């Protein structure tokens, strides 16, 4: 009994850790898509930020400089996306694909140039990483049955970026639904003309949304290479950006629902490792690949309208062209 309990807690704990980059990336995507700009490039921004953050952390010896560098790297890519899709009214999907591929190539080329190894940075020591922190009161509660384990394994003992991820979500909700910026953001994704004729600049709103997205995505990337892992390795995002996109759709562009989707997908990822080789009576061995593919399958089913309907912001993917 206690084994199953502990194992459940540990799986949930693993889910939390996997969830973090998904949260940052999907919140980034939320800002972009709410403003009417489709962001396929989340994956590339995560990757670029992960690489630049690890590089900066190694060179300057501080995770905080890594954080800053990662955010800047991701934001630069976000602005490239903005330049193409807002200022030059290019195809947003094409531009996003370009960013993903560019990031995949640049991380390889730059790591070779900087560290003499393609696709890998030196391992970060503890001074260069974000380490786990024990929350206060751990000693007091540690001996309490059940609660103690939950507190120790699940709630305490994460690094600062994990806590930030869970604080970010209500903040995003508040910004999107309670502020002037949020009102305009939601409006510009639905009907940019209404925003323009209300005397608000569509372009500036969309740039702001993408910049916020760039920053958030940047933090997600930083987490991957300086907190979750201790170095950058080739293609370390492994599709997180696309899972985040799936979570964004699955959560219907609403912060809390997106958070739930992120957690669901992270949980599937966490149990897929644990279920490897385990035979379920009457069913047989569940292929790991099937569990890994579940987020994608669920998203496709949702998109197909078989379970509810995911309707994106009306103006998404359409460049705003001023005409009557």
């Amino acid at each position, binding site marked *: 009994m206690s084994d199953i309990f502990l194992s459940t807690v540990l799986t949930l704990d693993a889910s939390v850790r996997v969830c973090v980059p998904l949260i940052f990336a999907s919140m980034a995507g939320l800002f972009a898509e709410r403003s009417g700009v489709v962001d396929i490039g989340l994956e590339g921004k995560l990757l670029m930020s992960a690489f630049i953050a690890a590089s900066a952390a190694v060179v300057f010896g501080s995770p905080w400089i890594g954080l800053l560098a990662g955010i800047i790297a991701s934001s630069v890519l976000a602005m490239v996306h903005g330049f193409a899709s807002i200022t030059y009214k290019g195809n947003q999907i*094409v531009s996003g694909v370009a960013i993903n*591929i560019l990031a995949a190539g640049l991380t390889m080329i730059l790591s*070779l140039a900087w560290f003499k190894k393609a696709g890998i940075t030196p391992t970060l020591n503890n001074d260069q990483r974000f380490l786990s922190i024990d929350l206060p009161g751990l000693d007091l509660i540690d001996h309490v049955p059940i609660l103690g384990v939950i507190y120790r394994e699940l709630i305490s003992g994460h690094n600062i970026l994990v806590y930030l991820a869970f604080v970010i979500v209500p903040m995003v909700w508040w910004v999107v639904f309670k502020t002037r910026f949020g009102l305009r953001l939601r409006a510009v994704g639905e009907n940019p003309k209404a925003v323009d004729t209300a005397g608000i600049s569509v372009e500036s709103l969309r740039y702001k949304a993408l910049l916020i997205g760039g920053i958030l995505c940047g933090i997600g990337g930083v987490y991957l290479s300086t907190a979750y892992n201790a170095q950058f390795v080739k293609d370390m995002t492994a599709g997180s950006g696309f899972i985040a996109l*799936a979570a964004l759709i699955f959560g219907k562009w609403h912060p809390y629902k997106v958070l739930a989707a992120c957690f669901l997908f992270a949980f599937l990822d966490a149990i897929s490792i644990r279920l490897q080789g385990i035979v379920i009576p009457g069913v047989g061995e569940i292929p790991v690949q099937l569990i890994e*593919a579940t987020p994608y399958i669920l998203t496709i089913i949702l998109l197909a309208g078989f379970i509810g309907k995911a309707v994106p912001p009306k103006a998404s993917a359409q460049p705003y062209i001023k005409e009557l």
Partner: protein
Amino acid sequence: MTRERRLSWINGLLLPFLNVLTAFIATAIVFILIGVDPIEATKILIYGALGYDEGLGYTLYYATNFVFTGLAVAVAFHAGLFNIGGEGQAYVGGLGTAIVALYLNPALSAWIVIPLAISGGLLFGALWAIIPAYLQAYRGSHIVITTIMFNFLASALMVYVLVNVLREVGEMSPESADFIKASWLPFVHDVFASFGYKIAKSPLNLSILVALFFSGLVWFFLWHTRWGYAIRAVGKSNDAAVYGGINPKKIIIVTMCISGALAGLVGINELMGVQHRLFLNFNYGYGFGGIAVALMGRNHPVGILIAAFLFGILYQGGAELDFELQNVSRDIVVVMQGLVILFCGGLEYLYRPILIRFLAPIEATE
């Protein structure tokens, strides 16, 4: 020159040329940033790709894959669809080829086996595209998102199949048994040898003829058949197509099947031509590369052949760079792909305002 003629020159040739040039310049800047002399790098690259038989063979061999995926993306573009799923369709297409090439009676003639194995690739590639197509046409799910998801599904499926089904007993690496001999596409150097010409060995095989054949076929199909007309009509104006009695839903399905089938041909080159077995990630990067090729080739088969050749040069020359210079790897090709997609795709209108301003005084005098 009339205004229309001038505009078509600008939009058709000058702007695309400037866009490609910008992508090259940006790549050169990346070279400089990593401490590599771009001119020297270009020399090595060109020599490695074109300077000797073997290099040229590799270049054309890589180009063959890009022709298939480039055509796949282009056909979909003509119907107004963005097929990002080339990666997955190529992968699953390879499975179709493999099934035929593994399980047909080894005694059969190559004249039967090869067409069937090619058809296997076409069929499985098409099948992998048909669900996203159906969901787009009849359920309104955005094809970009669904094809992305299908790339990941393809990846999961292929790992499962290779590890659990096709892997031979006692083998560690997830790959299939060897294909039957009759399914092997001859290497070009062997073909030449049989006519008495000796050229260096390279993976270049007769798939390149298949690629040329399908380029011609796509060209004929899009511009010289009523179905091609219907596809282009849907791509340009859905309402007008409906008015003209064309059913856009059917067109979406048909076009995506063609697109997926073309992507499914990557396996012909990689599996039937070179490796003679199915293995993990043989498709890696060609699906996305196809987007760059299609954008650079302006979605026209001739342009695609040129762009695919260029990417072949980059792939092969990039390998040479890897070998010759310490500071750069062939991943520079990936950077280049990204830049081509950015400047020929996302930023395709970059120079238009400047050109329009430049032209305004000329037009005013007319």
